[in-house]
């Protein structure tokens, strides 16, 4: 009986802790899952947390105040690049589709969906009113080449998005304009 009570208490504590953790995750954060490095081909994973971002922000402050301001609003930047092979192509395409569905369900705005020359690009934004972008997701799958997953979490002003694209080399963002809280692409791929 005592053991059951202890087990129950432990389970309750663990679930509370897990719920608390889930609740504290910023709204713009997306879990792509873990990516395994393929046996051959390229694999790159970058995961920059807020502490490192604020370090860079303080260093860059005097040289580029505007960029420093943008960095101050960022909480996390995660980039995954995985080479496509026969082994992982299907799984990665499914994963991108699944994440896209989840984002659609969770109120993310799909601002870009372009399919051209075997390239499939999707860009999603999580906005809070007209004032702030809480999260950004870019998923690009280049047939026979690589899959790219990007998640930028923070408190970003819509006007800062093209600068973000420029500084972090996220091409689809460079041409993005936000008008009246609604995102638009310059070249009309949307």
């Amino acid at each position: 009986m005592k053991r059951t009570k202890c087990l129950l208490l432990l389970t309750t504590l663990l679930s509370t802790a897990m719920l608390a953790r889930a609740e504290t995750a910023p709204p713009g954060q997306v879990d792509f899952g873990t990516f395994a490095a393929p046996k051959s081909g390229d694999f790159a994973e970058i995961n920059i947390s807020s502490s490192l971002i604020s370090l860079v922000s303080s260093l860059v402050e005097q040289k580029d105040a505007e960029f420093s301001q943008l960095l101050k609003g960022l909480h996390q930047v995660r980039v995954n690049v995985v080479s496509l092979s026969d082994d992982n192509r299907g799984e990665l395409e499914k994963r991108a589709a699944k994440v896209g569905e989840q984002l659609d369900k969770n109120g993310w705005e799909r601002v870009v969906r372009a399919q051209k020359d075997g390239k499939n690009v999707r860009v999603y934004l999580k906005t809070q009113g007209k004032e702030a972008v809480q999260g950004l997701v870019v998923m690009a799958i280049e047939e026979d080449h690589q899959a790219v997953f990007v998640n930028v979490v923070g408190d970003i002003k819509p006007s800062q998005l093209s600068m973000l694209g420029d500084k972090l080399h996220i091409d689809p963002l460079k041409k993005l304009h936000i008008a009246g809280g609604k995102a638009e692409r310059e070249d009309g791929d949307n």
Partner: protein
Amino acid sequence: MPVGRRQGVRWGYVVTGAVVFICVWAAVSVIGFFQLGSDTSALRESVMAGVGGSWEKKIAVHAGFLTTGFIRIGSKALKLKAEPRAAIESLRGAEVGVYSLRERPASVDNGFILARADKAMSARGWERIVGVSNDGKLVAVFCPQRSGSGGMLKLCVLVLDERNLVVVSGKGEMGPLFELAMKRIGREKKLAEFIRRQIS
């Protein structure tokens, strides 16, 4: 008279103690100079166990706060280029280990090695910020989960290239290096702009 003798005895103890302390300190420093710290060792061990086989140590060097301090002071007398100067000014401690696998491995699974390294380092409060695998080469960069206070950054890097493993750990003031990087970027941007104008 007895008081004077007692004082003499005390001074003898102090001098002997100081000499012993200096000798022990010097011995520990010399031994420590050729040993990696616990975090870097944990990273090295995780990779070695992941690859398997028998490894040979080529070199392992550890330079702490004092050593890097002496290097900084000594380098002031030298005429150095901006890059090495910035690196020396930034550095507050570093350790490097180079190891080689005695026989060529049948196959190396970089994904497995990375997962092992992640596990070993996260248990010690480090997180991976970069992981790159390309053409059989593997590079991973770890930093403490709470890092960057006061402009100081601590990094642990592993480079695995077929039979060679390099583990590097460094602690440094990021200001001088960042200053240099910004200058470089600015110069390259100007150059690119100049070339673009010439072409058009």
